[in-house]
Protein backbone atom coordinates (compact mmCIF):
# COMPACT_ATOMS: atom_id res chain seq x y z
CA UNK A 1 0.00 0.00 0.00
CA UNK A 2 1.46 3.35 -1.02
CA UNK A 3 1.52 6.58 0.94
CA UNK A 4 -0.80 8.56 -1.33
CA UNK A 5 -3.30 5.74 -1.25
CA UNK A 6 -3.18 5.45 2.54
CA UNK A 7 -3.47 9.19 3.11
CA UNK A 8 -6.51 9.65 0.92
CA UNK A 9 -8.06 6.46 2.20
CA UNK A 10 -7.73 7.41 5.89
CA UNK A 11 -8.78 10.97 5.28
CA UNK A 12 -11.86 9.95 3.29
CA UNK A 13 -12.82 7.16 5.63
CA UNK A 14 -12.47 9.25 8.80
CA UNK A 15 -14.59 11.97 7.22
CA UNK A 16 -17.26 9.42 6.42
CA UNK A 17 -16.97 8.00 9.92
CA UNK A 18 -17.29 11.46 11.47
CA UNK A 19 -20.39 12.26 9.46
CA UNK A 20 -21.88 8.96 10.59
CA UNK A 21 -21.04 9.74 14.24
CA UNK A 22 -22.63 13.17 14.11
CA UNK A 23 -25.65 11.74 12.42
CA UNK A 24 -25.88 8.99 15.04
CA UNK A 25 -25.38 11.43 17.92
CA UNK A 26 -28.11 13.65 16.62
CA UNK A 27 -30.51 10.84 15.86
CA UNK A 28 -29.88 8.63 18.89
CA UNK A 29 -29.51 11.18 21.63
CA UNK A 30 -31.33 14.32 20.60
CA UNK A 31 -34.37 12.24 19.83
CA UNK A 32 -36.24 13.81 17.03
CA UNK A 33 -38.88 11.17 17.05
CA UNK A 34 -37.00 9.28 14.39
CA UNK A 35 -35.71 6.96 17.00
CA UNK A 36 -38.37 4.37 16.80
CA UNK A 37 -38.47 4.81 13.05
CA UNK A 38 -34.74 4.43 12.29
CA UNK A 39 -33.72 2.21 15.18
CA UNK A 40 -30.00 2.68 14.84
CA UNK A 41 -27.81 0.56 17.03
CA UNK A 42 -24.05 0.28 17.63
CA UNK A 43 -24.21 -2.80 15.44
CA UNK A 44 -25.62 -0.77 12.54
CA UNK A 45 -22.91 1.84 13.00
CA UNK A 46 -20.25 -0.79 12.81
CA UNK A 47 -21.76 -2.16 9.62
CA UNK A 48 -21.92 1.37 8.19
CA UNK A 49 -18.28 1.92 9.02
CA UNK A 50 -17.16 -1.28 7.33
CA UNK A 51 -19.31 -0.66 4.25
CA UNK A 52 -17.94 2.88 4.14
CA UNK A 53 -14.42 1.52 4.31
CA UNK A 54 -14.98 -0.79 1.38
CA UNK A 55 -16.57 2.02 -0.58
CA UNK A 56 -13.62 4.34 0.11
CA UNK A 57 -11.17 1.60 -0.85
CA UNK A 58 -12.82 1.09 -4.23
CA UNK A 59 -13.10 4.81 -5.03
CA UNK A 60 -9.48 5.47 -4.17
CA UNK A 61 -8.22 2.43 -5.96
CA UNK A 62 -10.07 3.72 -9.01
CA UNK A 63 -7.92 6.86 -8.73
CA UNK A 64 -4.51 5.50 -7.73
CA UNK A 65 -4.34 2.32 -9.81
CA UNK A 66 -3.91 4.22 -13.10
CA UNK A 67 -1.22 6.33 -11.43
CA UNK A 68 0.67 3.16 -10.55
CA UNK A 69 0.30 1.88 -14.10
CA UNK A 70 1.61 5.16 -15.50
CA UNK A 71 4.50 5.02 -13.04
CA UNK A 72 5.41 1.50 -14.14
CA UNK A 73 5.27 2.51 -17.80
CA UNK A 74 7.53 5.52 -17.15
CA UNK A 75 10.01 3.34 -15.25
CA UNK A 76 10.04 0.85 -18.11
CA UNK A 77 10.85 3.61 -20.61
CA UNK A 78 13.56 4.94 -18.32
CA UNK A 79 15.15 1.47 -18.38
CA UNK A 80 15.34 1.64 -22.15
CA UNK A 81 12.24 -0.31 -23.21
CA UNK A 82 11.13 2.52 -25.46
CA UNK A 83 8.30 0.56 -27.06
CA UNK A 84 6.37 0.62 -23.76
CA UNK A 85 2.87 2.15 -23.89
CA UNK A 86 0.25 2.48 -21.15
CA UNK A 87 -2.59 -0.02 -20.85
CA UNK A 88 -5.24 0.80 -23.52
CA UNK A 89 -7.92 0.35 -20.84
CA UNK A 90 -6.60 3.53 -19.23
CA UNK A 91 -7.27 5.54 -22.33
CA UNK A 92 -10.86 4.33 -22.57
CA UNK A 93 -11.79 6.22 -19.42
CA UNK A 94 -13.24 9.62 -20.02
CA UNK A 95 -11.55 11.73 -17.40
CA UNK A 96 -8.35 13.62 -16.60
CA UNK A 97 -6.47 10.37 -16.16
CA UNK A 98 -7.25 9.21 -19.69
CA UNK A 99 -5.97 12.59 -20.97
CA UNK A 100 -2.77 12.01 -19.02
CA UNK A 101 -2.46 8.49 -20.41
CA UNK A 102 -2.96 9.68 -23.98
CA UNK A 103 -0.38 12.44 -23.57
CA UNK A 104 2.00 9.98 -21.95
CA UNK A 105 1.76 7.73 -24.99
CA UNK A 106 2.32 10.65 -27.34
CA UNK A 107 5.42 11.52 -25.36
CA UNK A 108 6.63 7.91 -25.44
CA UNK A 109 6.09 7.74 -29.20
CA UNK A 110 8.10 10.90 -29.69
CA UNK A 111 10.97 9.67 -27.53
CA UNK A 112 11.00 6.36 -29.35
CA UNK A 113 11.02 8.10 -32.74
CA UNK A 114 13.84 10.42 -31.66
CA UNK A 115 16.03 7.66 -30.25
CA UNK A 116 15.37 5.34 -33.20
CA UNK A 117 16.19 8.23 -35.53
CA UNK A 118 19.39 8.92 -33.63
CA UNK A 119 20.42 5.28 -33.75
CA UNK A 120 19.61 5.15 -37.46
CA UNK A 121 21.57 8.33 -38.11
CA UNK A 122 24.59 6.96 -36.25
CA UNK A 123 24.54 3.83 -38.39
CA UNK A 124 24.06 5.81 -41.58
CA UNK A 125 26.82 8.30 -40.79
CA UNK A 126 29.18 5.48 -39.94
CA UNK A 127 28.29 3.70 -43.15
CA UNK A 128 28.30 6.72 -45.44
CA UNK A 129 31.61 8.09 -44.19
CA UNK A 130 33.31 4.75 -44.12
CA UNK A 131 32.30 3.54 -47.57
CA UNK A 132 34.57 6.00 -49.43
CA UNK A 133 37.35 5.22 -46.95
CA UNK A 134 36.98 1.49 -47.64
CA UNK A 135 37.22 2.05 -51.39
CA UNK A 136 40.22 4.28 -50.87
CA UNK A 137 42.05 1.58 -48.88
CA UNK A 138 41.42 -1.11 -51.47
CA UNK A 139 42.39 1.21 -54.34
CA UNK A 140 45.56 2.05 -52.45
CA UNK A 141 46.28 -1.67 -52.10
CA UNK A 142 45.88 -2.08 -55.85
CA UNK A 143 48.26 0.79 -56.55
CA UNK A 144 50.86 -0.69 -54.22
CA UNK A 145 50.50 -4.03 -55.93
CA UNK A 146 51.10 -2.55 -59.42
CA UNK A 147 53.95 -0.32 -58.30
CA UNK A 148 55.62 -3.16 -56.42
CA UNK A 149 55.92 -5.02 -59.73
CA UNK A 150 57.53 -2.07 -61.52
CA UNK A 151 59.76 -1.22 -58.60
CA UNK A 152 58.74 1.88 -56.71
CA UNK A 153 60.69 4.99 -55.87
CA UNK A 154 61.29 5.40 -52.17
CA UNK A 155 59.53 8.72 -52.00
CA UNK A 156 56.44 7.41 -53.77
CA UNK A 157 56.32 4.52 -51.31
CA UNK A 158 56.54 6.92 -48.37
CA UNK A 159 53.76 9.08 -49.76
CA UNK A 160 51.55 6.06 -50.25
CA UNK A 161 52.18 5.00 -46.66
CA UNK A 162 51.21 8.52 -45.63
CA UNK A 163 47.90 8.29 -47.49
CA UNK A 164 47.19 4.96 -45.80
CA UNK A 165 48.01 6.42 -42.38
CA UNK A 166 45.73 9.44 -42.88
CA UNK A 167 42.90 7.18 -44.02
CA UNK A 168 43.37 5.11 -40.86
CA UNK A 169 43.33 8.27 -38.72
CA UNK A 170 40.11 9.45 -40.31
CA UNK A 171 38.57 6.08 -39.69
CA UNK A 172 39.71 5.95 -36.06
CA UNK A 173 38.25 9.40 -35.51
CA UNK A 174 34.89 8.42 -37.00
CA UNK A 175 34.89 5.30 -34.82
CA UNK A 176 35.61 7.25 -31.64
CA UNK A 177 33.11 9.95 -32.44
CA UNK A 178 30.46 7.31 -32.92
CA UNK A 179 31.49 5.57 -29.70
CA UNK A 180 31.11 8.86 -27.84
CA UNK A 181 27.69 9.56 -29.32
CA UNK A 182 26.62 6.03 -28.53
CA UNK A 183 27.55 6.38 -24.87
CA UNK A 184 25.66 9.66 -24.63
CA UNK A 185 22.52 8.33 -26.26
CA UNK A 186 22.55 5.18 -24.15
CA UNK A 187 22.03 2.85 -27.11
CA UNK A 188 23.85 -0.44 -27.68
CA UNK A 189 25.62 -0.63 -24.37
CA UNK A 190 25.05 -4.32 -24.01
CA UNK A 191 23.62 -5.81 -20.84
CA UNK A 192 24.79 -4.57 -17.46
CA UNK A 193 26.08 -7.04 -14.90
CA UNK A 194 28.54 -7.70 -12.08
CA UNK A 195 32.08 -8.28 -13.17
CA UNK A 196 35.62 -8.60 -11.89
CA UNK A 197 37.33 -5.22 -12.32
CA UNK A 198 40.71 -6.59 -11.25
CA UNK A 199 40.63 -9.11 -14.07
CA UNK A 200 39.60 -6.42 -16.55
CA UNK A 201 42.42 -4.10 -15.48
CA UNK A 202 44.87 -7.00 -15.72
CA UNK A 203 43.73 -7.80 -19.26
CA UNK A 204 43.99 -4.19 -20.38
CA UNK A 205 47.44 -3.90 -18.76
CA UNK A 206 48.66 -7.05 -20.53
CA UNK A 207 47.47 -5.82 -23.91
CA UNK A 208 48.86 -2.37 -23.15
CA UNK A 209 52.22 -3.84 -22.22
CA UNK A 210 52.26 -5.79 -25.47
CA UNK A 211 51.61 -2.60 -27.40
CA UNK A 212 54.09 -0.57 -25.33
CA UNK A 213 56.94 -3.07 -25.71
CA UNK A 214 56.96 -2.41 -29.45
CA UNK A 215 58.12 1.16 -28.76
CA UNK A 216 60.44 0.40 -25.83
CA UNK A 217 57.99 1.32 -23.07
CA UNK A 218 56.05 -0.91 -20.68
CA UNK A 219 52.94 -1.16 -18.54
CA UNK A 220 53.20 -2.54 -15.01
CA UNK A 221 50.60 -3.21 -12.35
CA UNK A 222 52.02 -1.99 -9.05
CA UNK A 223 49.15 -2.99 -6.85
CA UNK A 224 45.81 -4.72 -7.44
CA UNK A 225 43.12 -5.39 -4.81
CA UNK A 226 40.20 -7.66 -5.63
CA UNK A 227 37.34 -5.46 -6.88
CA UNK A 228 33.92 -6.25 -8.26
CA UNK A 229 31.77 -3.57 -9.88
CA UNK A 230 28.35 -3.34 -11.50
CA UNK A 231 27.96 -2.02 -15.01
CA UNK A 232 28.74 -2.44 -18.66
CA UNK A 233 31.97 -4.40 -18.94
CA UNK A 234 32.81 -3.47 -22.53
CA UNK A 235 32.15 0.20 -21.85
CA UNK A 236 34.46 0.25 -18.83
CA UNK A 237 37.03 -1.74 -20.75
CA UNK A 238 37.11 0.95 -23.42
CA UNK A 239 37.39 3.63 -20.70
CA UNK A 240 40.39 1.98 -19.06
CA UNK A 241 41.91 1.06 -22.41
CA UNK A 242 41.72 4.67 -23.58
CA UNK A 243 43.35 5.98 -20.41
CA UNK A 244 46.10 3.34 -20.59
CA UNK A 245 46.83 3.93 -24.27
CA UNK A 246 46.93 7.66 -23.71
CA UNK A 247 49.52 7.09 -20.99
CA UNK A 248 51.56 4.76 -23.25
CA UNK A 249 51.56 7.44 -25.95
CA UNK A 250 52.91 10.10 -23.61
CA UNK A 251 55.28 8.26 -21.30
CA UNK A 252 58.96 8.79 -22.09
CA UNK A 253 60.93 6.12 -23.89
CA UNK A 254 62.30 3.48 -21.54
CA UNK A 255 59.78 4.25 -18.78
CA UNK A 256 56.76 2.33 -17.52
CA UNK A 257 53.11 3.27 -17.21
CA UNK A 258 52.19 2.34 -13.64
CA UNK A 259 48.71 1.10 -12.79
CA UNK A 260 47.29 0.52 -9.34
CA UNK A 261 43.85 -0.59 -8.25
CA UNK A 262 42.68 -0.11 -4.66
CA UNK A 263 39.51 -1.33 -3.02
CA UNK A 264 38.50 1.36 -0.50
CA UNK A 265 35.39 -0.37 0.93
CA UNK A 266 32.68 1.68 -0.81
CA UNK A 267 34.61 2.63 -3.91
CA UNK A 268 37.50 1.47 -6.01
CA UNK A 269 40.33 3.75 -7.01
CA UNK A 270 42.12 3.06 -10.28
CA UNK A 271 45.25 5.10 -10.85
CA UNK A 272 47.20 5.24 -14.10
CA UNK A 273 50.48 7.13 -14.02
CA UNK A 274 52.84 7.91 -16.87
CA UNK A 275 56.33 9.43 -16.98
CA UNK A 276 55.67 11.95 -19.69
CA UNK A 277 55.60 15.73 -19.89
CA UNK A 278 52.34 16.02 -17.91
CA UNK A 279 49.62 18.55 -18.71
CA UNK A 280 49.53 22.33 -17.99
CA UNK A 281 47.51 22.92 -14.79
CA UNK A 282 44.82 24.93 -16.61
CA UNK A 283 44.18 22.04 -19.02
CA UNK A 284 43.64 19.31 -16.40
CA UNK A 285 39.85 19.51 -16.65
CA UNK A 286 39.72 20.26 -20.35
CA UNK A 287 41.53 17.13 -21.48
CA UNK A 288 38.30 15.19 -20.85
CA UNK A 289 36.44 17.29 -23.44
CA UNK A 290 36.33 16.10 -27.07
CA UNK A 291 39.09 17.35 -29.40
CA UNK A 292 41.05 19.15 -26.65
CA UNK A 293 44.66 18.38 -27.17
CA UNK A 294 47.71 19.92 -25.67
CA UNK A 295 49.38 22.04 -28.33
CA UNK A 296 52.84 20.51 -28.25
CA UNK A 297 52.68 19.15 -31.75
CA UNK A 298 53.30 15.58 -30.70
CA UNK A 299 49.74 14.49 -30.01
CA UNK A 300 48.87 11.58 -32.21
CA UNK A 301 45.39 10.63 -31.11
CA UNK A 302 42.18 12.20 -32.30
CA UNK A 303 41.69 13.84 -28.91
CA UNK A 304 38.68 11.69 -28.15
CA UNK A 305 40.08 8.84 -26.04
CA UNK A 306 39.90 10.61 -22.67
CA UNK A 307 36.48 12.06 -23.54
CA UNK A 308 35.19 8.54 -24.14
CA UNK A 309 36.75 7.41 -20.85
CA UNK A 310 35.12 10.34 -19.02
CA UNK A 311 31.62 9.67 -20.32
CA UNK A 312 31.91 5.92 -19.75
CA UNK A 313 32.93 6.52 -16.12
CA UNK A 314 30.01 8.98 -15.71
CA UNK A 315 27.58 6.32 -16.87
CA UNK A 316 28.81 4.10 -14.03
CA UNK A 317 28.31 6.78 -11.39
CA UNK A 318 32.06 7.23 -10.99
CA UNK A 319 34.42 10.17 -11.30
CA UNK A 320 37.56 10.70 -13.33
CA UNK A 321 40.25 13.33 -12.76
CA UNK A 322 43.74 14.15 -13.88
CA UNK A 323 46.64 15.64 -11.93
CA UNK A 324 50.33 16.17 -12.43
CA UNK A 325 52.60 14.02 -10.32
CA UNK A 326 55.03 16.06 -8.17
CA UNK A 327 57.95 14.20 -9.75
CA UNK A 328 56.60 14.74 -13.27
CA UNK A 329 54.15 12.80 -15.43
CA UNK A 330 50.38 12.65 -15.51
CA UNK A 331 48.15 10.72 -13.11
CA UNK A 332 44.61 9.82 -14.12
CA UNK A 333 42.38 8.56 -11.32
CA UNK A 334 39.05 6.80 -11.74
CA UNK A 335 36.67 6.24 -8.80
CA UNK A 336 33.98 3.66 -9.24
CA UNK A 337 31.32 2.53 -6.78
CA UNK A 338 31.91 -1.03 -5.53
CA UNK A 339 29.17 -3.57 -6.34
CA UNK A 340 27.06 -4.49 -3.34
CA UNK A 341 26.99 -8.16 -2.34
CA UNK A 342 24.65 -10.17 -4.56
CA UNK A 343 21.30 -10.63 -2.87
Amino acid at each position, binding site marked *: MRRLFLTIFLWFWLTLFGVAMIFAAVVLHAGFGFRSFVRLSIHDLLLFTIAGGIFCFLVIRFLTKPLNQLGEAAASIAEGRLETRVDPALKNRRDEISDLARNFDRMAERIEALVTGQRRLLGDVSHELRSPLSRLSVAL*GLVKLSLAKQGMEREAAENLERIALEALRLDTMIGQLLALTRIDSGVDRGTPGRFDLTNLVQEVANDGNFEARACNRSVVIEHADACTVNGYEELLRSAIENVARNAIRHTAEGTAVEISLQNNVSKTLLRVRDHGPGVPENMLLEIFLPFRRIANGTAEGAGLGLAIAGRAVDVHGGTIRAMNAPAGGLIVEIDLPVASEPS
Partner: protein
Amino acid sequence: MERVLVVDDDAELCQLVTRFLAREGIATTWAPNGTAGVEHALAGDYSLIMLDVMMPDTDGFDVLRRIRQQSRTPVLMLTARGDTHDRIRGLEMGADDYLPKPFDPAELVARIRAILRRSAPQRPAFAAISLADIELDGGTRSVRRSGAAVDLTTVEFDLLAALMRVAGSTVSREDLVRNVLGREFSPFDRSIDTHVCNLRRKLGPLEDGGERIKGVRGAGYLYASRAKAELK
Protein backbone atom coordinates in the same frame (compact mmCIF):
# COMPACT_ATOMS: atom_id res chain seq x y z
CA MET B 1 40.66 -21.43 -57.88
CA GLU B 2 39.03 -20.50 -54.60
CA ARG B 3 35.55 -18.97 -54.85
CA VAL B 4 34.46 -16.29 -52.41
CA LEU B 5 30.98 -14.82 -52.09
CA VAL B 6 30.96 -11.12 -51.22
CA VAL B 7 27.73 -9.88 -49.61
CA ASP B 8 28.00 -6.09 -49.55
CA ASP B 9 25.79 -3.31 -50.87
CA ASP B 10 28.75 -1.22 -52.08
CA ALA B 11 29.11 -2.10 -55.80
CA GLU B 12 32.18 0.04 -56.35
CA LEU B 13 34.00 -1.44 -53.39
CA CYS B 14 33.19 -4.93 -54.61
CA GLN B 15 34.64 -4.14 -58.03
CA LEU B 16 37.89 -3.06 -56.40
CA VAL B 17 37.95 -6.08 -54.10
CA THR B 18 37.25 -8.40 -57.03
CA ARG B 19 40.16 -6.89 -58.94
CA PHE B 20 42.48 -7.26 -55.96
CA LEU B 21 41.46 -10.83 -55.14
CA ALA B 22 41.72 -11.85 -58.80
CA ARG B 23 45.42 -10.97 -58.69
CA GLU B 24 45.75 -13.23 -55.68
CA GLY B 25 44.03 -16.06 -57.51
CA ILE B 26 40.68 -15.82 -55.75
CA ALA B 27 37.44 -15.62 -57.76
CA THR B 28 34.56 -13.59 -56.34
CA THR B 29 30.81 -13.51 -56.77
CA TRP B 30 28.91 -10.44 -55.67
CA ALA B 31 25.57 -10.39 -53.86
CA PRO B 32 24.28 -6.83 -53.46
CA ASN B 33 21.90 -7.49 -50.57
CA GLY B 34 21.05 -9.91 -47.79
CA THR B 35 18.36 -11.86 -49.62
CA ALA B 36 20.58 -12.48 -52.64
CA GLY B 37 23.40 -13.25 -50.23
CA VAL B 38 21.47 -16.03 -48.47
CA GLU B 39 20.29 -17.47 -51.82
CA HIS B 40 23.81 -17.56 -53.28
CA ALA B 41 25.33 -18.85 -50.05
CA LEU B 42 22.95 -21.79 -49.86
CA ALA B 43 22.88 -22.57 -53.58
CA GLY B 44 26.49 -22.08 -54.61
CA ASP B 45 29.59 -23.91 -53.65
CA TYR B 46 31.77 -21.24 -52.05
CA SER B 47 34.85 -21.74 -49.95
CA LEU B 48 34.15 -18.57 -47.97
CA ILE B 49 31.55 -15.86 -47.51
CA MET B 50 32.53 -12.24 -46.86
CA LEU B 51 29.58 -10.59 -45.15
CA ASP B 52 29.19 -6.90 -44.44
CA VAL B 53 27.05 -6.66 -41.29
CA MET B 54 26.47 -2.92 -41.72
CA MET B 55 24.34 -2.89 -44.86
CA PRO B 56 21.81 -0.06 -44.57
CA ASP B 57 18.70 -1.93 -45.69
CA THR B 58 19.43 -5.46 -44.46
CA ASP B 59 20.34 -6.74 -41.05
CA GLY B 60 23.64 -8.53 -41.60
CA PHE B 61 23.12 -10.60 -38.46
CA ASP B 62 19.86 -11.92 -39.83
CA VAL B 63 21.73 -12.96 -43.00
CA LEU B 64 24.39 -14.65 -40.85
CA ARG B 65 21.74 -16.51 -38.83
CA ARG B 66 19.95 -17.72 -41.95
CA ILE B 67 23.20 -18.92 -43.53
CA ARG B 68 24.26 -20.67 -40.32
CA GLN B 69 20.94 -22.53 -40.06
CA GLN B 70 21.79 -24.55 -43.16
CA SER B 71 25.43 -24.13 -43.98
CA ARG B 72 28.79 -24.24 -42.27
CA THR B 73 30.67 -22.39 -45.00
CA PRO B 74 33.20 -20.14 -43.24
CA VAL B 75 31.99 -16.55 -42.82
CA LEU B 76 34.31 -13.54 -42.56
CA MET B 77 32.41 -10.60 -41.14
CA LEU B 78 33.12 -7.01 -42.06
CA THR B 79 32.38 -4.74 -39.10
CA ALA B 80 32.90 -1.10 -38.24
CA ARG B 81 36.23 -0.43 -36.55
CA GLY B 82 35.85 -0.11 -32.81
CA ASP B 83 32.37 -1.57 -32.73
CA THR B 84 33.00 -4.33 -30.19
CA HIS B 85 29.28 -4.93 -29.79
CA ASP B 86 28.79 -6.01 -33.43
CA ARG B 87 31.97 -8.02 -33.43
CA ILE B 88 31.08 -10.02 -30.33
CA ARG B 89 27.55 -10.59 -31.58
CA GLY B 90 28.78 -11.85 -34.96
CA LEU B 91 31.35 -14.23 -33.47
CA GLU B 92 28.73 -15.51 -31.02
CA MET B 93 26.41 -16.24 -33.93
CA GLY B 94 29.01 -18.43 -35.58
CA ALA B 95 31.06 -16.15 -37.83
CA ASP B 96 34.62 -17.48 -38.20
CA ASP B 97 36.48 -14.21 -38.05
CA TYR B 98 35.99 -10.51 -38.58
CA LEU B 99 37.77 -7.67 -40.29
CA PRO B 100 37.13 -4.03 -39.44
CA LYS B 101 36.16 -1.91 -42.41
CA PRO B 102 37.97 -0.01 -43.97
CA PHE B 103 40.62 -2.70 -44.40
CA ASP B 104 43.97 -3.08 -46.09
CA PRO B 105 43.28 -5.55 -48.92
CA ALA B 106 46.52 -7.37 -48.15
CA GLU B 107 45.14 -8.00 -44.64
CA LEU B 108 41.88 -9.22 -46.20
CA VAL B 109 43.78 -11.75 -48.29
CA ALA B 110 45.74 -12.88 -45.22
CA ARG B 111 42.52 -13.46 -43.24
CA ILE B 112 40.86 -15.27 -46.13
CA ARG B 113 43.89 -17.53 -46.50
CA ALA B 114 44.00 -18.21 -42.75
CA ILE B 115 40.34 -19.23 -42.70
CA LEU B 116 40.67 -21.35 -45.85
CA ARG B 117 43.71 -23.13 -44.44
CA ARG B 118 41.73 -23.97 -41.35
CA SER B 119 38.68 -25.26 -43.13
CA ALA B 120 40.40 -27.04 -46.01
CA PRO B 121 39.99 -30.81 -45.96
CA GLN B 122 43.46 -31.59 -44.73
CA ARG B 123 45.18 -34.53 -43.20
CA PRO B 124 43.97 -34.21 -39.64
CA ALA B 125 46.58 -33.30 -37.08
CA PHE B 126 45.19 -36.02 -34.83
CA ALA B 127 42.75 -38.90 -35.22
CA ALA B 128 40.90 -38.42 -31.98
CA ILE B 129 41.23 -36.78 -28.57
CA SER B 130 39.20 -37.94 -25.63
CA LEU B 131 39.14 -36.61 -22.12
CA ALA B 132 36.47 -37.41 -19.53
CA ASP B 133 33.10 -36.60 -21.14
CA ILE B 134 34.46 -34.99 -24.34
CA GLU B 135 35.49 -36.78 -27.51
CA LEU B 136 36.99 -35.02 -30.53
CA ASP B 137 37.14 -36.73 -33.89
CA GLY B 138 39.92 -35.17 -35.95
CA GLY B 139 38.80 -36.83 -39.18
CA THR B 140 35.17 -35.70 -39.25
CA ARG B 141 35.92 -32.63 -37.12
CA SER B 142 33.02 -33.48 -34.82
CA VAL B 143 32.69 -33.23 -31.06
CA ARG B 144 30.63 -35.32 -28.66
CA ARG B 145 29.89 -34.58 -25.04
CA SER B 146 28.72 -37.67 -23.13
CA GLY B 147 27.84 -39.19 -26.51
CA ALA B 148 25.71 -36.25 -27.72
CA ALA B 149 26.95 -34.23 -30.71
CA VAL B 150 27.92 -30.59 -30.05
CA ASP B 151 27.79 -28.20 -33.00
CA LEU B 152 31.03 -26.19 -33.15
CA THR B 153 32.36 -23.84 -35.81
CA THR B 154 35.77 -24.61 -37.31
CA VAL B 155 37.46 -22.04 -35.09
CA GLU B 156 35.82 -23.39 -31.96
CA PHE B 157 36.85 -26.93 -32.90
CA ASP B 158 40.50 -25.92 -33.39
CA LEU B 159 40.46 -23.88 -30.20
CA LEU B 160 39.08 -26.81 -28.19
CA ALA B 161 41.64 -29.16 -29.72
CA ALA B 162 44.47 -26.73 -28.95
CA LEU B 163 43.38 -26.50 -25.31
CA MET B 164 42.61 -30.20 -24.80
CA ARG B 165 45.86 -31.49 -26.25
CA VAL B 166 47.68 -29.90 -23.36
CA ALA B 167 44.82 -30.18 -20.84
CA GLY B 168 45.87 -29.05 -17.40
CA SER B 169 48.45 -26.58 -18.62
CA THR B 170 48.01 -23.00 -19.73
CA VAL B 171 48.09 -21.89 -23.36
CA SER B 172 48.87 -18.19 -23.82
CA ARG B 173 46.46 -15.94 -25.70
CA GLU B 174 49.28 -15.06 -28.10
CA ASP B 175 49.77 -18.73 -28.99
CA LEU B 176 46.05 -19.28 -29.38
CA VAL B 177 45.70 -16.32 -31.74
CA ARG B 178 48.70 -17.46 -33.76
CA ASN B 179 47.85 -21.16 -33.96
CA VAL B 180 44.05 -21.10 -33.96
CA LEU B 181 43.17 -17.87 -35.75
CA GLY B 182 46.31 -18.05 -37.86
CA ARG B 183 47.38 -14.45 -37.49
CA GLU B 184 49.74 -12.35 -35.42
CA PHE B 185 48.52 -11.36 -31.96
CA SER B 186 47.42 -7.76 -31.81
CA PRO B 187 46.73 -6.18 -28.44
CA PHE B 188 43.19 -5.04 -27.55
CA ASP B 189 41.74 -7.58 -29.97
CA ARG B 190 39.37 -9.73 -27.92
CA SER B 191 38.16 -12.15 -30.58
CA ILE B 192 39.94 -15.16 -29.10
CA ASP B 193 38.21 -14.42 -25.76
CA THR B 194 34.83 -14.30 -27.48
CA HIS B 195 35.51 -17.69 -29.07
CA VAL B 196 36.46 -19.09 -25.63
CA CYS B 197 33.17 -17.71 -24.25
CA ASN B 198 31.24 -19.46 -27.02
CA LEU B 199 33.01 -22.74 -26.29
CA ARG B 200 32.20 -22.47 -22.59
CA ARG B 201 28.56 -21.78 -23.40
CA LYS B 202 28.29 -24.67 -25.85
CA LEU B 203 30.11 -27.25 -23.71
CA GLY B 204 28.76 -26.30 -20.28
CA PRO B 205 30.61 -27.02 -17.03
CA LEU B 206 32.58 -30.17 -16.21
CA GLU B 207 30.72 -33.23 -14.95
CA ASP B 208 31.54 -32.29 -11.36
CA GLY B 209 30.17 -28.77 -11.96
CA GLY B 210 33.61 -27.14 -12.18
CA GLU B 211 34.65 -24.64 -14.82
CA ARG B 212 35.76 -26.39 -18.01
CA ILE B 213 37.97 -23.70 -19.53
CA LYS B 214 39.66 -21.51 -16.98
CA GLY B 215 41.02 -18.06 -17.68
CA VAL B 216 44.46 -17.67 -16.15
CA ARG B 217 44.93 -14.02 -15.27
CA GLY B 218 47.62 -12.44 -17.36
CA ALA B 219 48.65 -15.74 -18.92
CA GLY B 220 45.98 -17.34 -21.07
CA TYR B 221 43.51 -20.18 -20.87
CA LEU B 222 43.62 -23.76 -19.67
CA TYR B 223 41.35 -26.78 -20.05
CA ALA B 224 40.76 -27.95 -16.50
CA SER B 225 41.65 -31.57 -16.01
CA ARG B 226 43.63 -33.75 -13.66
CA ALA B 227 43.98 -36.53 -16.19
CA LYS B 228 45.99 -36.31 -19.39
CA ALA B 229 44.05 -36.21 -22.65
CA GLU B 230 44.13 -39.44 -24.60
CA LEU B 231 45.58 -38.70 -28.02
CA LYS B 232 45.28 -41.08 -30.93
